[in-house]
């Protein structure tokens, strides 16, 4: 990401005392604990002009769930909403805010894209990663069947309901392999971790890349 | 079992609704035709035959995927001839001789079906005339057995919705529901001016064209969009589950050329 931002001549700061947006606790139903993380997140990031995050689900947490989390504290809620407005997922930031699609990335081979649930449905991120991939030199893009179908990660769901989770990721992996792609790309590391884990266990040569890695030419 | 008062009291308590009943009632129920209903009614009342021909076209298109066969005929006698041809070429699904059951209805009366079908020796059963005396168990029993053995049921309808290819039938004396339900083939005969566009028009007509204080539709109103079907086995579509397997709709369409006549729906 840094490489990309530097190319765009952006002043970047990465607060090193950041920890977590609180999503794991929130999704598991532990709202009080999630709030602790959320308050910290807001304190650390609210002074920034823009906050960019390489994770659709984290941005979703901030934009969609923070106001809900703070519904009983008007002051915190206001701060959460103000922060949400300037928090962007990476591809959203590059395509919609910076309006730059070509970042000099290169990939020789076929690429397919997995649409992460939170990024797609909550944030409407679908065209942006596709536009970025289209500008990757040497790459051939193939849509997989049902790219928007959930990969089965779902946070702790993946360890608590492993057979269901595995059955779902199997379908996803099947669709990926059916495209003949050399690599599958996504905007959410959690989905990618899940997909990669299954591909690896199956000894598949298909690579798994986060969009940032693809853009930076890894 | 609980009383209505206690049950609804619990619902009201759950909603935290303390009073404001009259105000809420006014908001939730419409007291008189709102602007939208007014527009809809105006449109139905000022519709011309040209407009209706467009609706007929749409009806035919919408009916196709539903297996609804829409046939335009120029007058009652042409319609009667077509029905006679249908009776001739079709066979009963269940055992027994051919017979037909029909509504008592002015439009159907004008077809003179008993006479037409008598040529093929096919009886036409009509419900008895309403004469003030309540129908006996015996009469109803006989009616049921006649309708049950008929292989074609012939009705008219009150309205036909073009957008969804729907026939609308109010249940009133002489126009019983089982005639469009028990026989294997359902034949409906309507006039062009009975075709309206869609559900909003239907509901507006039912609510505001009926003569007060009755609602326009009695204890039973049936909407039929195509013959019976099911896809419960492996999602394979099969026509003819429990209701009629075939549905023919004859629309009497005067061929006197398109004229800009204002026709209101009764």
């Amino acid at each position, binding site marked *: 990401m*840094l490489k990309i931002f530097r190319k765009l001549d952006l002043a970047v700061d*990465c607060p*090193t005392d950041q*920890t977590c947006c609180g999503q794991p*606790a929130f*999704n598991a*139903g532990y709202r009080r604990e999630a709030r*602790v*993380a959320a308050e910290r997140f807001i304190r650390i990031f609210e002074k920034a002009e823009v906050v960019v995050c390489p994770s659709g689900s984290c941005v979703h947490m901030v934009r969609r769930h923070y106001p809900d989390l703070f519904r009983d504290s008007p002051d915190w809620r206001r701060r959460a909403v103000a922060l949400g407005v300037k928090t962007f997922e990476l591809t959203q930031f590059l395509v919609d805010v910076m309006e730059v699609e070509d970042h000099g990335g290169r990939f020789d081979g076929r690429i397919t894209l997995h649409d992460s649930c939170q990024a797609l449905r909550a944030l409407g991120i679908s065209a942006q990663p596709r536009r970025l991939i289209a500008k990757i030199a040497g790459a051939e893009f193939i849509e997989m069947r049902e790219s928007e179908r*959930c990969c*089965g990660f*779902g*946070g702790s*769901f993946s*360890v608590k*309901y*492993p*057979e269901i989770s*595995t*059955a779902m990721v199997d379908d996803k992996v099947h669709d990926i392999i059916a495209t003949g792609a050399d690599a599958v790309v996504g905007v959410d590391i959690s989905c990618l*971790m899940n997909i990669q*884990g*299954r591909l*690896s*266990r199956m000894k598949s040569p298909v690579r798994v890349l986060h969009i940032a*890695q693809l853009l930076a030419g890894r | *079992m*609980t009383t*209505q008062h206690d049950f609804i009291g619990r*619902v009201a*308590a*759950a*909603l935290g*609704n303390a009073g404001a009943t009259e105000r*809420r009632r006014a908001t*939730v*129920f419409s007291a008189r035709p709102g602007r939208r209903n007014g527009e809809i009614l105006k449109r139905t009342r000022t519709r011309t035959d040209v407009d209706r021909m467009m609706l007929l076209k749409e009806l035919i298109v919408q009916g196709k995927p539903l297996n609804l066969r829409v046939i335009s005929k120029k007058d009652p006698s042409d319609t009667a001839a077509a029905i006679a041809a249908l009776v001739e070429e079709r066979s009963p699904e269940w055992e027994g001789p051919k017979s037909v059951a029909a509504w008592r209805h002015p439009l159907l009366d004008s077809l003179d079906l008993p006479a037409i079908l008598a040529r093929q020796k096919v009886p036409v059963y009509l419900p008895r005339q309403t004469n003030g005396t309540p129908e006996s168990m015996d009469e109803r029993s006989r009616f*049921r057995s006649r309708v*049950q053995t008929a292989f074609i049921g012939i009705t008219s309808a009150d309205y036909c919705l073009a957008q*969804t290819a729907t026939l609308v039938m109010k249940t009133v004396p002489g126009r*019983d*529901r089982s005639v469009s*339900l028990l026989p294997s083939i359902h034949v409906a005969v309507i006039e062009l001016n009975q075709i309206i566009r869609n559900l*909003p028009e239907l509901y*507006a007509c039912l*609510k505001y064209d009926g003569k007060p204080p009755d609602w326009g539709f009695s*204890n039973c109103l*049936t909407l*039929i*969009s*195509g013959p019976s*079907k*099911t896809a*419960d086995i492996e*999602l*394979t579509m*099969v026509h*003819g*589950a429990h*209701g009629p397997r075939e549905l023919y709709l004859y629309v009497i369409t005067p061929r006197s050329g398109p004229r800009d006549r204002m026709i209101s729906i009764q």
Partner: protein
Amino acid sequence: MSQIRTERYKTEARKAIKDRVLQSALSSVQDRLGKGTAKAYRELPEGPGLRRTAHDMRMQAVENLDLLLETLADNIGKNGGRVIFADDAQAAVTACIDIARKHEVRQVVKGKSMVTEEIGLNPALQAAGIEVTETDLGEYIIQLAGESPSHIIAPAIHKTREQVGRLFAEKLGISYTDDPPTLTRTARKALRQKFLTADMGISGCNLACAETGHITTVSNEGNIRMATTLPRVHVAFMGMERVTARLEDHDILFRLLSRGAAAQHLAGYISYIGGPRQTGQMDGPEDFYLIIIDNGRSKILADTEFREILCCIRCAACLNVCPVYGKIGGHAYGFAYSGPVGAVVTPLLVGIERAKDLFLGETLCGACKDACPVDIDLPRMLLALRARLTRGGVDRPTEGGITAEKVFYRAWSAAIRNRRIYTGLMRTARMAQRPFTGVDGMIHHLPFPFDGWTRSRDLKPLTSKFFTERWNKSRLVNDDNPT
């Protein structure tokens, strides 16, 4: 109440995943009906925004339910029908049996009704010596097979034509065939006799209309018309939330129901029924009863966080797109309602602790919300159920793994607060993972509770250098994103 098997979620899910026939059937349903829904919404003349209008309409009805029910009851009375209010499943069942006894009913024909599944009506009637025949083809099939429905709209979707063929050969004595039209004709013939001889017809109610005093029934087969026209008594069951104020509300709701359920413009048969047959009518029942059921709905109504679920019109659009339902099928949900709607409404009806797998065993992907014709925010309520569960004290104190989990998250939130502790933990994890990391650089085994992951998947280990460490080391390092 019908039997509650929500505790069997994991077991049934495991069984379902291994069942190739079921998997194929589920894929088929979701392919044919799930994908068609989005397209059907786009083709609406008013556009997909109509769903929001429908949502507001349903919420208004739910929020004025007391008025609507009162008006409905009064108007049904005017149409000659009788309304009975039932607090719970037992009251509803008892009322029905009383009616059956009063009218000397021996045989019942029944249209598909989820609320009658919920209250366990069939077994109770049968125990009272009354023969009950399900007449919806899918329900008829599973009744013959002695099973419960696996889908709200297509109850026998889990059965192949060969299975149905064998079932009919065995139970109906016909020679084996697996041709759906032939099988359907067989059912048509068998059920026709039942319709003609039954004493009582039972139906549900899709959407009642308060201002006119009618219930509505919806089908494509015509079985509900048969069951509510031919027998001499008609008893309709209605979940208390299934009512609209105005007649014109039905336009939007029926169009959306038909699209959500089966990508149709409008269902084949819609009947408005307000009372028994009137003088001059030769057919129709002599008596009409409407049983309006609470059974836990007023509790849901009182809870503003979950009130929205009462907007549901039971179209099953959410089932048709849910990736979890698509793997585990309807039986895993252990109650009348399956899929995303089941994951919300079942715990609210039978107990949050008891049915917790239903809302924990979802990925919150959000496909259901997009598919819902009345735009119900199901994911929001799934999250809210999780929060309720952890608060504890809801029905029972939480037990076992959940308590340990609570401790875990408390510790986690302490760590989150303090970057040094957080980093310390991450470093510890990085060290601890080394013995687990294979030569290929991936982790293949992890101890409980993470073995759920590694049974079927590898795990990419934490990177050797955290981004924040690199950032700290040198602001000018030309390095890339963290993993």
